[in-house]
């Protein structure tokens, strides 16, 4: 590529980069449509989905559970130290539950999922591309978008909301351990405050909706980056990095928009 020497060259480079980004976005939409729309011709779709649910979902359980417990414990500690200044430490259960269900459950799960499962998906698909496995699937007459991509997409869409629920549940349990067992908040008020303040539609369901949106975005970015990467070691490594960076930024940006839409009508 010619070196940018003049201002005009730099503007041209900027334009080229912009066009490249737009082209990639277009490709990713076509990619998602072709992978999801229509039926596949082979018979073992359920088995493929199960395999991916295991590697994408079940294998992410450990990091989700451990992080959930610790985040719940930290929330309880921080919440207690602030709330006890006002003598309202009984509200710590309410604070932990609402924070987890509305925000941290979906968001932190999505970030962890992008790092744990998203990067693995990108690297795996990129490697399949560089070793011509995707090409050979095509030449066997099997559409890799249906055989490789679709089960991974659905596995991500299904498992991330479930992981987010698990994250919130173990987080609340971690919070109760710290608040009730360790700091001595009265157990009855811890749980009844939580029960009174958490609304199923406003809090639980909105959290699940957030998590479904994040699941689609993170998994889509991860598999597309793998499929679209340059099939070299350097290309795969760049694509894996892009997955984590783009997915994390998309999750945080979307979280703001979704929160504004869901809870912003004060």
């Amino acid at each position, binding site marked *: 590529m010619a070196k940018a020497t003049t201002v005009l060259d730099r503007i041209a480079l900027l334009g080229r980069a912009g066009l490249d980004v737009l082209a990639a976005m277009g490709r990713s939409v076509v990619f998602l449509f072709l992978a999801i729309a229509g039926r596949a*011709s082979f018979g073992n779709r359920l088995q493929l989905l199960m395999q991916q649910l295991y590697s994408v979902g079940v294998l992410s359980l450990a990091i989700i559970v451990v992080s959930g417990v610790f985040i719940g414990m930290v929330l309880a500690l921080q919440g207690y130290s602030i709330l006890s200044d006002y003598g309202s430490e009984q509200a710590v259960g309410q604070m932990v539950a609402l924070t987890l269900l509305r925000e941290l459950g979906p968001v932190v799960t999505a970030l962890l999922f992008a790092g744990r499962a998203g990067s693995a998906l990108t690297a795996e698909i990129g490697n399949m591309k560089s070793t*011509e496995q995707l090409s050979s699937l095509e030449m066997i007459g099997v559409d890799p978008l249906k055989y490789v991509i679709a089960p991974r997409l659905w596995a991500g869409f299904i498992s991330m909301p479930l992981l987010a629920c698990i994250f919130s549940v173990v987080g609340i349990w971690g919070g109760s351990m710290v608040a009730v067992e360790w700091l001595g908040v009265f157990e009855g008020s811890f749980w009844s405050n939580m029960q009174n303040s958490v609304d199923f539609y406003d809090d639980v369901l909105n959290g699940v909706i957030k998590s479904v949106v994040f699941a689609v975005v993170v998994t889509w970015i991860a598999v597309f980056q793998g499929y679209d990467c340059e099939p070299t070691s350097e290309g795969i490594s760049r694509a894996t990095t892009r997955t984590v960076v783009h997915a994390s930024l998309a999750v945080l940006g979307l979280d703001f928009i979704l929160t504004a839409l869901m809870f912003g009508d004060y």
Partner: protein
Amino acid sequence: MATDARNAVELKGVSFRRGERFIFNNVDIAIPRGKVTGIMGPSGCGKTTLLRLIGAQLRAESGEIWVDGSNLPSLARTELFDLRKRMGVLFQSGALFTDLSVFENVAFPLRVHTQLPDDMIRDIVLLKLQAVGLRGAIDLMPDELSGGMKRRVALARAIALDPQILLYDEPFVGQDPIAMGVLVRLIRLLNDALGITSIVVSHDLAETASIADYIYVVGDSQVLGHGTPDELMASDNPRIKQFMQGSPDGPVPFHFPANKLADDLLGGVRG
């Protein structure tokens, strides 16, 4: 424009570019049905690109590519996948599925495209592996095989569905002399016994010439010449002569296009 039924594959006025560089410029190639056709040429002349054009993994900039009576650029995605079931490709690296055993790799096309019972699939896989001499490796994983063995397993997989057209991408690279001899015979045998059309892309002159019925020599984004191996050996065309005799001096340059060596050496810092 219809295609000649005697040809399994026909390229008419095909052009393909990578960036500004023409890989093929208005190329015509006809692959006769039921024969072994060699596509030869120096490294980097676009032989693998040609295979990918025939398999519709790359789209030509212009021209028609007829495969088994269908014009590839006009096919819908699903029709294309149906057509590919009638083609087998042996990739240069083998491209085995790394998470499946040798048995499962060869059984894969049968499992996804047929409703055959398991014991019949097992028999077919055993026969295909027997043909490439690797029946004993049936339970191994791809990472336990040498490069040459991987390619033979890939060949067994490529012929699992008894395709009508078989494309070989550099099948002789990295084979030991015994495996090479077996492979050369096998390509000929499969072609004659199954009545398929074989396209062998290679730069191994002796092996390709020994099995091919017809050879195309490509280079310089053109077809330099074509004919039976004997005709090409006797050709007066200096480019074909140079390639067939493997001489370093001649009209086909050994070097990739570049500035003069002295200019590059004295030109100081790159950029």
